[in-house]
């Protein structure tokens, strides 16, 4: 029985349990002098909880444990594989492949197939268009048959036990229903548990992502020394195409980090004043009508996919800056040579800055609006103008919040990928000239992972080291922002 069918049956049992619980509760309440502790719907949900929770936990546990146990059993039966020098993991994968192939064959061919040699089986599979690894050996067929049998047993047992548990749970729940049963409180606990589960899944995923990067990063640092990575000033990873002779290149982080920070800096230079002034206009000067139109329009910018900004930079802003610089140079020196490259720090920075404007303005607007009205009144009441009030009362009061908003924006700028991939160029250069191309950590991650590459060379593994470095930087920025926000809250409540 398939897993989804089992779940459907369990849900059906729960639904029946709900109805029975609901009716029993109503009946008991009608026949009792006491007032029922909980409404009938809570008694129904109480039964549902008992039917669902134990059985679904068991189902999940079984689905996780059973393949591992079967694999262990099969591994124990494979002495030859290890003698032959074949990787046992690879061998098991082939067994799995054959097992899956056997299941796909029509019923009348199954018995013949189970007795066939590996070579015959491959032929049978090919007729049916089933792909299977060419290195399979005879003993694997036998094991595959065994594996399929074990799997079948496991599944039948699982179906029976899970459904029985659901029925038993529902029956227990039903038997517990009484007029004074505190089903309402119990259901509340179940709801709490579900919410905790949801948030822990989110947190565990983050932890999982970090660990997956961490192992690859450790692998990388086994091949390239951390000092040459973190303090190296040359980025020249060499090539690592599949089959080619892997030359060890130089993996200096500094030029990439410099490019990342430089471009982010230019972007903030564009986004902070414009975004902040827009926020001040919207929160302090604009009438409600204007605000209700301008704010959503500005936030529309945030909805544009970053790849589109990338096009904009590549096709419009980059060439425009290049041509403008050529004209400017021509007017001044007579030499029509452009001094701004089409792909440059300034192009990427400006376009990224435009992308960040809505972040700055929207976050700052919320923070400025949160400054109590009484402070504005106090300042106006003393005869201050709007701009004096903004400069001397509102901005100082909102400053911690604004700083943390800017840090969050900066962490976005540092992690931004698509705009820089298209607009900043790929040359890992250390320069202070904003008119030349520089590259960023994210661009190099994209570069190192694109194409036909082996996943076990330093050239690809470096992407994980870069990723985790970037993650560490943005995490630090976010933590600082959170700390500032917390301090700010304490001051205002």
């Amino acid at each position, binding site marked *: 029985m398939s897993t989804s069918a089992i779940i459907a049956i369990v849900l059906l049992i729960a639904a029946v349990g709900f109805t029975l619980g609901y009716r029993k509760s109503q009946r008991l309440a009608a026949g009792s002098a006491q007032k029922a502790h909980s409404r009938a719907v809570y008694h129904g949900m109480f039964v549902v909880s008992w039917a669902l929770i134990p059985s679904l936990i068991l189902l999940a546990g079984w689905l996780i444990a059973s393949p591992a146990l079967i694999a262990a059993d099969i591994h124990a039966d494979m002495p030859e594989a290890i003698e032959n020098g074949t990787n046992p993991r690879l061998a098991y994968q082939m067994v799995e492949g054959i097992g899956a192939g056997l299941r796909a064959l029509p019923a009348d061919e199954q018995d013949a197939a189970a007795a066939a040699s590996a070579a015959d089986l491959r032929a049978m599979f090919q007729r049916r268009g089933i792909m299977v690894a060419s290195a399979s050996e005879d003993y694997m067929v036998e094991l595959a048959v065994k594996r399929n049998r074990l799997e079948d047993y496991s599944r039948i047992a699982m179906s029976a036990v899970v459904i029985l548990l659901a029925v038993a749970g529902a029956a227990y729940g039903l038997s517990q229903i009484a007029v004074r049963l505190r089903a309402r409180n119990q259901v509340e606990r179940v709801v709490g548990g579900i919410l905790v589960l949801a948030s822990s899944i989110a947190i565990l995923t983050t932890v999982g992502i970090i660990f997956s990067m961490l192992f690859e990063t450790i692998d990388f640092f086994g091949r390239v020394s951390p000092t040459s990575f973190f303090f190296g000033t040359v980025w020249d990873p060499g090539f690592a195409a599949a089959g080619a002779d892997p030359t060890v290149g130089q993996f200096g982080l500094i030029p990439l980090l410099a490019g990342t920070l430089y471009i982010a800096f230019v972007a903030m230079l564009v986004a902070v004043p414009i975004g902040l002034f827009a926020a001040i206009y919207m929160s302090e000067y604009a009438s*409600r009508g204007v605000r209700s139109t301008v704010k959503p329009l500005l936030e529309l910018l945030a909805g544009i996919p970053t790849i589109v900004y990338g096009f904009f930079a590549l096709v419009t802003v980059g060439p425009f800056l290049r041509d403008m610089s050529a004209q400017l140079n021509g007017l001044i020196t007579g030499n029509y040579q452009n001094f701004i490259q089409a792909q440059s720090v300034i192009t990427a920075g400006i376009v990224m800055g435009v992308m960040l404007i809505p972040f700055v303005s929207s976050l700052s607007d919320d923070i400025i609006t949160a400054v109590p009205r009484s402070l504005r009144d*106090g300042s106006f*009441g*003393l*005869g201050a103008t709007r701009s004096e009030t903004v400069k*001397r009362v509102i901005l100082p*009061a909102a400053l911690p919040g604004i700083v943390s908003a800017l840090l969050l924006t900066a962490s976005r700028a540092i992690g931004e990928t698509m705009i820089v991939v298209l607009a900043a160029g790929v040359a890992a250069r250390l320069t202070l000239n904003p008119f030349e191309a520089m590259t960023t950590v994210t661009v190099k991650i994209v570069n190192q992972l694109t194409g036909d590459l082996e996943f076990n060379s330093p050239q690809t593994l470096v992407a994980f080291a870069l990723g985790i470095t970037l993650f560490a930087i943005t995490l630090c920025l976010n933590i600082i922002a959170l700390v500032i926000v917390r301090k700010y809250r304490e*001051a205002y409540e």
Partner: protein
Amino acid sequence: MNQTIVPAASVLHPTAAFARPVKMRGEKVTVHYGAKQALFEVNLEIPERQVTALIGPSGCGKSTFLRCLNRMNDTIEGARVGGMITLDGEDIYDPTLDVVELRARVGMVFQKPNPFPKSIFDNVAYGPRIHGLARSKSDIEEIVVTSLRRAGLFEEVKDRLHEAGTGLSGGQQQRLCIARAIAVSPEVILMDEPCSALDPIATAKVEELIDELRQNYTIVIVTHSMQQAARVSQITAMFHLGNLVEVGPTEKMFQNPDDKRTQDYITGRFG
């Protein structure tokens, strides 16, 4: 403290207050908030260097009238003011009038103490600085100290002038706000329920202060407390449903009001 319990008006001759020159005058003042009319043709004179109390049940328009006197209603979207209000005979709603200057002449203290998130010193120095009232650092210091003294706060805070104003107690914060208003040397001080967020002891101190400030300033106070109106004011104006019901010397208003609504309100029959 005991002397503040005695109605301040009782020491005066009932008509003495009206003998004073008129500082501000409202003629047929109407206020609309959007489509809703909040004030109906109010005529009221504010005598110079007296405390005028505006009383009445919630939503009667007394705060609205107060906010007209220094055009704080301008900062509320959808508020429209009609009629005429004068300060020393000058129309304050005249388009050529500088609102910023008006508010320097007619200061305001709010219901909830609202010190800026700055030091005590900077709170008081705020007004003089933006209006350029001081030429030097020592000028500013002098204004701050004088204002704090007048607000009766100096002795309590003289050792921590550079600590945050928000760290003071509620009553101290309110007196800081009064000091802040005094620092720009206004002629009129408007107070919108200045004691509603304070405990009785802090309230007594602020009331004492209001009584002293009367020597130099014209004060208009909105209050929900009948006792407070009786204690601090010389003139009382009763508002009801956006109309001015009755105005007169405080003593007369509390002992022998002309209008039945005033009597009912003062004796606690509604409101």
